[in-house]
């Protein structure tokens, strides 16, 4: 039973990775938010299993925090932002998805190789998943780089935080509660500010395409 539970951690970790790939491949903003919510849910499930197996009760706390923040609050806020920006059905068409995904595979291989020596030092039950957590972070980075619109970039940023949180749970026994709370509020404040930014960008340029920001001067 215990070993089966330990295997479900791997399963949830792989779900996180696949969802990170799905986000890269997804063009629609609405589906992107759904995927982000799902990723949050997978993260909560993985944290709960780790908490149960290792008997670390503060991990239950961070699981609840993650649930409230990443499965409920942030998705609701994102839904409201895309409603008010009226980009709910927006579709991005500008990048080549198969190429991006191939780059993604290379990133995964790099992450797995990077994490292997670190994981062998750790004694945590979920140490094997450190590579997956690292891969999730790099994939979210990639998403932030290739996306041209503001909302997907913000979602990339948020999903990177998911990867970071999972790395902390997998490699060590989770971060200290105070650090976790700090990060949680940083993310929350971050998304509020980014939300304001998105409105400002739209106000200035009549579009959410951040390539407009590359020009510093009016012609």
């Amino acid at each position, binding site marked *: 039973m215990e070993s089966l539970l330990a295997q479900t951690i791997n399963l949830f970790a*792989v779900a996180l990775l696949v969802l990170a790939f799905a986000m890269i491949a997804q063009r629609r903003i609405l589906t992107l938010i759904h995927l982000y919510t799902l990723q949050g849910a997978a993260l909560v499930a993985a944290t709960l299993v780790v908490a149960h197996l290792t008997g670390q009760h503060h991990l239950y706390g961070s699981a609840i925090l993650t649930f409230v923040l990443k499965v409920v609050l942030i998705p609701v806020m994102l839904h409201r932002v895309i409603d008010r920006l009226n980009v709910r059905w927006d579709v991005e068409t500008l990048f080549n998805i198969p190429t991006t995904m191939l780059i993604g595979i290379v990133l995964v291989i790099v992450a797995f190789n990077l994490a292997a020596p670190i994981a062998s030092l750790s004694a945590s039950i979920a140490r094997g998943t450190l590579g997956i957590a690292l891969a999730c972070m790099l994939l979210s980075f990639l998403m932030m780089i290739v996306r041209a619109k503001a909302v997907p970039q913000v979602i990339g940023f948020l999903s990177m935080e998911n990867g970071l949180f999972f790395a902390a749970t997998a490699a060590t026994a989770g971060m200290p509660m105070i650090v976790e709370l700090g990060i949680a509020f940083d993310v929350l404040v971050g998304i509020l500010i980014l939300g304001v930014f998105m409105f400002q960008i739209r106000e200035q340029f009549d579009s959410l395409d951040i390539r407009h920001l590359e020009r510093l001067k009016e012609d």
Partner: protein
Amino acid sequence: MVSWTGLLAQILAIALALALAPLLMGWVNQWRAWLQNRRAPSLLQPYRTLHKLFHKESVLAENASPLFRIAPYIVFGCMALACGIAPTLSTDLPLAPAADAIALVGLFALARVFISLAAMDVGTAFGSLGARREMLIGFLAEPALLMVLFSASLITQSTSLARIVETLAHQSFAIYPSLAVAGVAFTFVSLAENARVPVDNPATHLELTMIHEALILEYSGRHLALIEWAAALKLFAYSCIGLALFFPWGVAEAGTPLAILFAIPALVLKLAVGGVLLAVIETINAKMRLFRVPEFLATAFLLAVIALLVHVLLGA
């Protein structure tokens, strides 16, 4: 040394595949109709279609070469053999050593090459259009399918399907994240390979979107019947390979002839559930544009590669 029970299981497996494949097709069509609020055709409709086609005269184009005539038989033979190799009822199959998972993919490729050549043989525009589309899908689906089979092979240390099933079904239950991902990839590939909805619509004769129908447009009578039957067998073979890799429980082991009796209801039950799931997938998805298909199959390939990588990382 071929055992009598093995031989019996082999004959039974092929006979069952030949008999049940149209039924599976009918079952999927029935559920599709129900889910889409239409009146369903009878479960036996595919048999009636086959019966009708076998009794009709086969009309050939004037410039059809012998290749056009023999292609249906080759395709049908390939699919029947594939059904014989996939461990549906028992893992003790005399034919199983003839082809491992890689050769099985080759068998599907052989059928694809012949049906495409035959489609181009008569020289109609639709035939070559369908053949090109079929090859486009095939060359993208095959590597993904191979990767899926490899991730199962990595776990069980064998590329023989029978060995894979034996190893997976008879060890203590374990969760393989790599197999879960490979399962999703396999679903994508089998949707594409069997001309099901997100890639091709099996119920359409609308010229511009069809793939499979365009290929076989020139066929009639018994040739068409064989091809339709082969298509049903292909769906059956893919379902059985999927079940063998991801739900291998219930398949009889070597030397237990009585277990075959239990393997039959288990197989029928698994196929019935699988057929309903296929109908659900086909109902909730819209057919995608042809130029999106490479992206769809690239995703399948990517998932299969992730499965391999995850296996290397986690060792499970």
